[in-house]
């Protein structure tokens, strides 16, 4: 792929000289910028192969680097222009794992809006591919526990356990993971929002139905928080699901 990547040139390798004489000839002026060459030896060709093995990652090979995905991306346009889906795909295909690792602080920021996938003229499932790249990097220990990974894992394990999710558990469980002190009742170990140390917006949100006397809403959600909604015929299916996830290495490490 003969695409010139400005971001692959580190500033240490760019030399600028006011006066430059080579072989006795003065080449100052327009010739004052020199980029020192770099040999890349640590690329990992298995990286792209592993991505293509997953059914949702195999379309990575159709990419022709037109950058339509990046042009559409709201994270790139409104948040951080270091987030560049086209570039991540480029690096992943070449297996330049160390370059990907330099960008781990932004790589997880994809909000799954699917503008990239939608507009790709080559039929690359860009959003899926980016998530597969992250998944493979995580499996190889190239990226740590990034925030959305923690949430995804938390969510998925709740689904695995009960078959359904519950908004209160997700919200308060997540707040607890963020370091807020959530008070729990002594018997069922369920969160009690009002005595917990949570931010003001959340406290106000929870107390709104109480202030308005919206009793049926409170009852419904309290019931769900106490007795987690679950799918009835779940046990047998859960075992299969757990096994599949184990085979994929998708269960939390150590958990």
């Amino acid at each position: 792929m003969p695409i010139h990547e400005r971001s692959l040139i580190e500033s240490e390798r760019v030399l600028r000289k006011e006066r430059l004489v080579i072989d006795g000839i003065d080449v100052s002026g327009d010739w004052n910028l020199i980029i020192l060459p770099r040999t890349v030896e640590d690329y990992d060709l298995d990286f792209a192969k592993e991505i293509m093995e997953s059914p949702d990652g195999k379309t990575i090979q159709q990419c022709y680097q037109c950058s339509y995905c990046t042009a559409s991306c709201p994270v790139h346009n409104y948040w951080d222009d270091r987030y560049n889906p086209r570039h991540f795909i480029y690096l992943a295909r070449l297996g330049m794992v160390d370059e990907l690792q330099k960008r781990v602080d932004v790589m997880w920021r994809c909000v799954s809006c699917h503008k990239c996938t939608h507009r790709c003229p080559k039929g690359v499932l860009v959003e899926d591919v980016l998530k597969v790249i992250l998944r493979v990097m995580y499996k190889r220990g190239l990226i740590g526990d990034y925030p959305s990974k923690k949430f995804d894992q938390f969510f998925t394990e709740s689904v695995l356990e009960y078959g359904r999710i519950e908004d209160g558990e997700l919200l308060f469980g997540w707040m607890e993971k963020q370091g807020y002190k959530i008070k729990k009742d002594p018997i069922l170990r369920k969160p009690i929002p009002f005595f917990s140390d949570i931010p003001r917006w959340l406290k106000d949100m929870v107390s709104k139905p109480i202030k308005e006397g919206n009793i049926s809403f409170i009852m419904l959600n309290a019931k769900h928080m106490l007795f987690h909604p679950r799918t009835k015929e779940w046990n047998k299916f859960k075992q299969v699901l757990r096994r599949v996830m184990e085979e994929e290495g998708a269960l939390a490490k150590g958990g």
Partner: protein
Amino acid sequence: MGIIGKRVAYYPGCSLEGASRAYDVSTRIVVKELGLELDYLEDYNCCGAMESKNVTFMGTMLLNARNMSLALKRGHKVIVAPCNGCSFSLQRAEYFLETDRKVFEKVNELLKEGDVDPLDEIPHTYHLLEWLYNEAGPQKVKERTVRPLKGLKVANYYGCLYTRPHFYSRTYAHAGGNGEERPRKRETADDDEHPFYMNELLEAAGAESVYFEPMHTQCCGGPHSLSDEDVSKKFVMMILQTAKRNGANIIATECPLCHASLEMYRYRLMLEGIEDVDVPAAYFTQLLGLAFGYSVDDVKLKDNLSDPIPVLRRLGIA
């Protein structure tokens, strides 16, 4: 009209049975009024939303295949989901099951192991809005309206996954390198980049749509609304400010996740003293319910954290 079917399987999703019950209740009201029928999918499981698919591929396929199998068992070939996330997940599974034979066979094998009937065909999933538009349509809404939403300026917020990506829901033989198959085009689908179904339904009920492009399909932070607060806050701010500055006095939503995200960050932005973010949000079915003559309590408007009741009272709608 009448391509999808009047009686379909209803996959509400976890959210609609908990914090977003207003959407569920108002959906049932609107569907009944428009002469359609939803068959509740008993004992369904979570679709995995936008989270599970990042963790496990096959697991997410299984979660959705189980729901599809339940629908087939009840004799349905069409599933309707009112949530963008749910309809997306089911459509995504549909795409992979349809285009990848290996995935299909593996999923069936695993379903059998888990005591679930294997799939002999793959049911199609539609978003509630698409179904309502195609099966009932603006004309029917107009006929049923007894209390027009006069003077209500609506910003119609569609969110991301209602129209995107077209591979999963409309032309799914195209991606994935399966070039020999002819792309299937879904005739009932809304416009990709300029969706208008919700605009037309609410306009038929007497409301006025404000100009809301391109924010009508801009992301609200979605699956990152809890894990990446900075980005979500900025996105919601852009959406709310565009709505307010274009003259909207309410935002109509069609996804419980978008709705929750908008309401949550609206309040947080207001606490921070950001300007022009105080537009309340309501589900489009709630607004249709009001137009059909139902009361505030019937459509559970009190459940909305952003409190749209004062705006509606002022206009004499609620």
